[in-house]
């Protein structure tokens, strides 16, 4: 998966040069406001896809604590009507504007932030969608390159766990 360099990453050029000092101070937070979340649902009728690139995330590299915040209205669908239905009927994004993950990287010790490499660890914590919170655990991959950290995780979610109601007539389409 290719990651677009967005404005905030340009700032990193500045911060990377200062990263050494930072570590000495004992500060060790990784953060972004332009993380990406892809939404995907496969059915017999059609695949439903959406992308959100305004995801906020902060990682404390010392404790492994990881928080992700997703603005539901920022999901972009190919079909305008799907986007409207997603916001209006299913996610009720005016009532529940944000979804959150609050958890940790279980094996944070295994990741060496000072050198390039790829690491695997499980991620566990609480996932909140539509004000319903469930404990989740999933595999994640972390890549360190040039002082930047890329993380990838996949959450599989059952609609019923998060209060998303599907009327019988459209059941097979979602």
């Amino acid at each position: 998966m290719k990651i677009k360099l967005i404005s905030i990453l340009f700032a990193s050029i500045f911060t990377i040069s200062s990263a050494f000092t930072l570590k000495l101070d004992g500060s060790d937070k990784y953060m972004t406001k332009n993380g990406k979340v892809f939404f995907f649902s496969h059915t017999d009728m059609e695949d439903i896809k959406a992308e959100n690139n305004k995801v906020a995330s902060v990682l404390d590299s010392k404790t492994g604590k990881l928080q992700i915040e997703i603005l539901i209205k920022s999901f972009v669908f190919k079909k305008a009507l799907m986007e409207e239905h997603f916001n209006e009927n299913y996610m009720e994004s005016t009532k529940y504007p944000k979804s959150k993950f609050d958890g940790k990287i279980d094996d944070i010790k295994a990741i060496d932030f000072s050198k390039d490499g790829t690491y695997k660890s499980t991620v566990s914590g609480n996932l909140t969608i539509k004000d319903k919170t469930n404990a989740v655990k999933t595999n994640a991959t972390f890549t360190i390159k040039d002082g930047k950290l890329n993380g990838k995780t996949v959450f599989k979610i059952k609609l019923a766990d998060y209060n998303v109601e599907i009327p019988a007539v459209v059941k097979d389409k979602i």
Partner: protein
Amino acid sequence: MKQNFWVFLIIWIGLPNLAIAQTDTTDLMGLLGNNEETEYATATFKTTRLLNGHSIENQAAGVLDFRINHRFGNLNGGTYEWFGLDQANVKLGLDYGVLPWLMVGLGHTNVDKTYDGFIKAKILRQSTGKKNMPISMTYVTSSAVTTLKWTNPNRNNYISSRYSYTHQLLIARKFSNATSIQIMPTLVHRNLVDSLKYKNDVLVIGIGGRQKLTKRMSINAEYYYVLPNQINKIYDNSLSLGLDIETGGHVFQLSCTNSRGMTDPQFLTQTQGKWTKGAIRFGFNISRVFTLRDRK
């Protein structure tokens, strides 16, 4: 039993940031600060029409909307007219979203064998956050041409007499997820009127709104008041009440109205029949959308 899964694939990018000192780890999000964005009001109405007239909604760019409007006869026609069901007036229309703010449409109705076309452009969008705008505003202009045979073929008839034009400013506000109100200052220009006593330019003011009952159903109302001393006294103001039902790509609008015509100048200036006398027509609009052009 089919299992439904929504999959969230999450990729995040992090970078070390100089500005951060050691803080309480329980709310890491606070470190990112508050970046306020503009949030636009969406889905003020379920579809591009309130009932007879336009709502501030446009079809999205690249979306084609096929519309079938149907009005039966008057309810007070009694059993002889099968309470109006023996009569049928139909309008077929095709609307297309050209740009996110621009929509065009064509239609034909059997009422006076009329063709019509419109252009609809968004001017303001209701929003909160960084940009604050309390209302949405849209401009619609339409022209209609009747193609009935001349009632008096022996006199000098001009083709221009068949035309009439409508200009509307739609001003709407979504007050809550369920409630939206719209006002519609309107000008209808008719090239030919029945008598010198009547105005060619008719000012009409409309008010309408919707109240959601469930996520997929809403009650709509629409009233057009013709300012006094402009048109023949035989005509009444148009009042319509309806129910919107949304099912995926379709929107069904069931309505009760005193207007027979479904084209702008017809329901605005030629509505005949009073609700109080039972001159109510049952009708429905069906909208089916087709996405012709995917968004990038």
